[in-house]
């Protein structure tokens, strides 16, 4: 890869490419090390981490849907201590920014875990105020401007790290949420998290997911995600990390044109474990073919109202 086409800086996090891996879909990174050179990923956003370990939801956790999937993992994770003591050290051998996706049940909890994670080796925090799979907290924060803002505010008070607010698409007006978290001090905004969905097995009459409802991701949601990124790009100044159904370089470019400064790839990793690297290569090829010199020349360049 020619060094100078793809590097981006998102709220002070320096990435070699604008292609990150989405939280919950790439483990802690090493799970994919047989397939991907982690040193060539923009950033790894690790699985949603909570103060205490969580065992997540019981029963079936995923269901395939047309061009998408539902998941209801329920934030299973080893907890912040285990992450800091055992997982983070093993990631230090890779030259890639590690962004920790954090979730809490109360505003205070977000603050506590933010403080714990304010250590070397963590490049930034992504606030999961939008997980549809946790009863208390989670999505509640993500669908109310005030609580979303207070989470961001609390986290900012407890860390020196860049703070990325991850928005839920399950809202009437995404720009309202975006403005609220920006005003509260978010250094960047990532979207979209999953759309709340449900699937029923017509043979058993039972919901396919043990948790009844789950989060929809994959190509199916891409049009909604692109629309929201475009709306938010026109509403805030902080950089946007776009995601939702990205499977190819063309998909990623759609998000960049809509206004995203970087993208994250989630479900696609399950389909093609090398996809995060291949998308970066594809973007570079696209830039070269058009004689562009940097990926920044695509950001927000969608042509509106031109014949």
């Amino acid at each position, binding site marked *: 890869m020619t060094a100078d086409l793809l590097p981006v800086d998102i709220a002070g996090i320096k990435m070699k490419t604008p292609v990150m891996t989405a939280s*919950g879909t790439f483990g802690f990174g090493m799970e*994919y090390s047989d397939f991907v050179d982690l040193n060539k990923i923009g950033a790894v956003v690790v699985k949603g981490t909570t103060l205490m370990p969580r065992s997540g939801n019981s029963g079936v956790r995923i269901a*395939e849907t047309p061009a998408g999937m539902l998941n209801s993992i329920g934030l299973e994770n080893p907890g912040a201590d285990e992450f800091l003591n055992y997982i983070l050290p093993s990631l230090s051998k890779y030259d890639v920014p590690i962004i920790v996706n954090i979730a809490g049940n109360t505003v205070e909890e977000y603050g506590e875990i933010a403080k714990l994670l304010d250590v070397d080796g963590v490049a930034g925090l992504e606030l999961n105020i939008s997980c549809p799979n946790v009863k208390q907290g989670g999505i509640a924060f993500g669908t109310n401007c005030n609580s979303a803002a207070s989470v961001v505010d609390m986290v900012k008070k407890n860390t020196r790290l860049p703070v990325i607010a991850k928005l839920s698409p399950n809202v009437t007006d995404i720009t309202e949420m975006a403005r609220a978290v920006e005003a509260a001090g978010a250094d960047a905004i990532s979207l979209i998290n999953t759309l709340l969905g449900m699937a029923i097995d017509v043979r058993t009459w039972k919901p396919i997911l043990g948790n009844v409802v789950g989060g929809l991701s*994959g190509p199916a949601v891409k049009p909604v995600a692109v629309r929201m990124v475009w709306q938010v790009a026109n509403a805030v100044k902080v950089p946007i990390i776009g995601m939702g159904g990205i499977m190819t370089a063309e998909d990623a470019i759609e998000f960049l044109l809509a206004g995203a400064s970087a993208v994250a790839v989630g479900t696609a990793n399950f*389909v093609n*474990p090398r996809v995060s690297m291949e998308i970066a290569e594809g973007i570079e090829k696209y830039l070269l073919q058009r004689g562009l010199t940097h990926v920044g020349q695509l950001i927000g360049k969608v042509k509106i109202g031109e014949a």
Partner: protein
Amino acid sequence: MSKLVVQAPVLKNETISNLVKRLTIYSPELAGKAVPGQFIHVKIADSYHPLLRRPLSISDVDVAKGTVSTIYRIVGHGTALLAQLKSDEVLDCMGPLGRGFNLECKKPLLVGGGMGLAPLVFLAQRLCPRPVEILMGGRSEQEMFWSSIYSTICDRVHIATDDGSVGQRGFTVDLLPELLESGNYDMVYSCGPRPMLEKIAAIAKNFAIPCQVSLEEHMACGVGACLSCTCAGKEGKRKKVCTDGPVFWAGEVF
């Protein structure tokens, strides 16, 4: 042991029973690495429909020929499309995935039900020349094409069918106690529906015979990254069926 993604040419995709087929692909890399109990994760059709890969146990490996086979039942959209694959088409396979069976034993008894019999074929092959016996259960005669497969590999094939059309009437778990009584086996390997595995594990435990079970869960990534497939482990900790398993010591999960 490192995992691969290969574009493997299809050699054969033959029907071996009603709704059950055997797919044989050419991949020396996979054949060379695979151990019994592991699976491949296949992308059926270059399309978003279906989107996700499908996990299939490795049921036969020929290292010399560089071939890997899987025996699958057509149950839905993905397996129906898989059944349409023709020779010389290529299949996108990840593998070998998961932790396989521990082979340290002298006189093993394999116990399998339904499609759980698929991975045990490869296991039986690798256990030879040790004396290998299998206790297999199925819904009725039509399921018992398995006996023809196993009779060529195993010393003894014990059969249980719920209608008694072949072998003894009953379920594997009904026949298991007397077998363990007499057979002085030193290892039980089992694969099949979870309720059956739990009963088998309990019986083996009564006879103080070590038991390994192969579990199934819905999987997205297949490599331990998404936590779709975890199950409750005994020591409190969750286990990932795709990487900690699919094969577990009964004591780890029941």
